[in-house]
């Protein structure tokens, strides 16, 4: 009877929470700092899903939950949603992002060049056992390149547009405060493109990968290519409310991916078509899968599993995880109701239709 113990329920839930934190050990500023320093990619994942760029708070959320990612994202989302909007940052274009890594699979070389930047892509995935075995802390410092790489790069898509391979780019001039905001409005269909991109940006990393992978494996367009993938730092340019001067409030880590497919448009003059995704934080796997989904969601013959409605509803991390764990709640009233209906059908006198 502990589940719905008379008068005990309230004490039981408080003790259960205390027990969780007791097993985790105490929360301290040192622990939060350690998480923030050691796990930047985990922070990026959580900040992306939370739509809140705040590394210190993300570290706090991770420390407070012991790394339970869905709980950490919910903590940050619940905090974020109550915060007032003090301003809107300026729109930033690709060529203004301080870019640390930039890859194109579409061309061997391209204006600005390929820049590997920091990556584990070509590492040998070998556990460094000597660290735990011998206490080794040896590391090899990266050598500086003879020529420093440029900090900014033109968009490959700009070159493709110039060459007529992509349709011309019409700049969306919607004022920032009027851009549809998924966190302040319900998601309705057909969803505005802003909602679609926001939904993918804050989507569950695992969920986005699952559906994106289904596209890649065979349920989507057949020949997607990574046009460009970037990791960078974007200036947050605000307008000072007093002086009206633009100023940078700091930089946020961002990642973005473009997926390109051939033979879109008309049969006579086929063109390329771009899928796009971007997130706060460096989340490479997620933006590639999300750009793949974005492209497929807009295709006229999207697989049922890749329509905007299916993708956006089912990759929402807070909603999906919350609903999943809600099945732990008691359901004995509904169960009783269905059981009663089933027993009536099982009754021997139930051969006739009930009237």
């Amino acid at each position, binding site marked *: 009877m502990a589940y719905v113990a008379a008068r005990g329920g309230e004490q039981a839930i408080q003790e259960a929470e205390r027990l969780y934190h007791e097993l985790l050990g105490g929360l301290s500023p040192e622990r939060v700092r350690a998480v923030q320093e050691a796990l930047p990619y985990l922070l990026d994942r959580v900040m992306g899903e939370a739509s809140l760029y705040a590394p210190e708070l993300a570290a706090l959320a991770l420390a407070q939950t012991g790394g339970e990612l869905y709980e950490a994202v*919910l903590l940050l989302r619940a905090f974020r949603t109550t915060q007032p909007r003090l301003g809107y940052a300026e729109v930033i274009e690709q060529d203004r992002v301080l870019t640390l890594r930039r890859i194109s699979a579409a061309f061997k070389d391209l204006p600005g060049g390929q820049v590997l930047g920091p990556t584990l892509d070509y590492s040998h995935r070998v556990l460094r056992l000597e660290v735990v075995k011998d206490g080794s802390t040896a590391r090899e410092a990266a050598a500086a390149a003879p020529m420093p790489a440029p900090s900014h790069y033109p968009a490959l898509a700009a070159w493709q547009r110039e060459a007529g391979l992509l349709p011309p780019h019409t700049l969306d001039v919607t004022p920032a405060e009027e851009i549809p905001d998924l966190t302040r409005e319900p998601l309705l269909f*057909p969803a505005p493109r802003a909602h679609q991109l926001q939904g993918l940006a804050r989507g569950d990393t695992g969920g986005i990968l699952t559906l994106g992978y289904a596209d890649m494996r065979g349920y989507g367009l057949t020949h997607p290519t990574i046009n460009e993938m970037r990791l960078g730092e974007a200036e947050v340019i605000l307008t000072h409310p007093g002086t009206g001067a633009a100023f940078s409030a700091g930089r946020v880590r961002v990642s973005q991916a473009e997926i390109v497919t051939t033979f879109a448009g008309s049969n006579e003059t086929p063109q390329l078509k771009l899928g796009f995704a971007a997130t706060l934080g460096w989340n490479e796997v997620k933006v590639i899968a999300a750009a793949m989904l974005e492209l497929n969601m807009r295709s006229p013959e999207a697989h049922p599993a890749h329509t905007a409605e299916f993708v956006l509803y089912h990759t929402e991390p807070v909603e999906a995880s919350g*609903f999943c764990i809600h099945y732990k709640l008691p359901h004995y009233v509904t169960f009783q109701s269905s059981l009663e*209906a089933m027993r009536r059908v099982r009754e021997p006198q139930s051969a006739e239709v009930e009237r």
Partner: protein
Amino acid sequence: MTVAQLAQPWQDHSYAFLDESAKRELRRKTLKAIALPGYQVPYASREVPIARGWGTGGLQVTLSLVGPDDVVKVIDQGADDSVNAANLRRFVARMTGVKTTTDALAATLIQSRHRIPEEVLRAEQALILQVPDPEPLREVEPDISVARQMHADADYGLSWLLLYEQLVRYRRIIQGDSYPALVHGRYVMSPSPIPRWDLPKLHHSAHLTLLSAGREKRLYAVPPYTEVRPLEFDDVPYRVEDQRAFACFRTGVRNKFLNELPQGDGSSRYELSDSGYAEKLLRGDLAGPTYFDSEGKFYHDGYLQG
């Protein structure tokens, strides 16, 4: 001017947690829902510090309505002391300081999951039902855009067909909880997963009922004194759960919704699901009139044919 001057003085949270813009949106959408009985109004549905699917829709409505003079009751499966009800009540009290109660008649706001209290609620009370799935057409049309169009056209043929197929297959209508109902002769709504026993209580009720799905971002309402009819064939009447043969082992009461409790010897015993009502009976307090009397007769004469 400095950024510090623009920012509000620091406080951990607003009264009732939600910021004022969130409350304003909820109140506007609530008014719209009341104006269009049974119509699902989309709303932003902010995150709250409770897991989605655990009553966040009901909680947002409660938080947008609650004021310092309110008295709040929270139940889950009819029980005030169910763990999640205890948690939600603790949260509302912590964010507002309002009084809480287990007495359905003493409360001004009742937030509930899966049950409507047995005692007849009054005009000045509001019942807020937590809703997991607001879409009564989900079973026949999983695409929400198509379902919206069907509501617009009052195209409910598939819902009737579903019930008819149950009759053909099982000779009974086997819908347990969440029985679809036509509200004010216009929209079919899901009454949330309340048992069939509770659905008639919404018909021409004195109190206001608000139904809110946080995860699905929809809220809808049954205003006071509104027609609520379960989908029912002329020759196959709607039936509530038949528990006539059983009595509550603690109070001896019959003809109320009972929980079945399996026993070690293979038998079952039964107890009142409405724990606040049971509490009153056990203390010997005067309980209010109930929707179903001690003989099982519903208080709106002639409403139930089955």
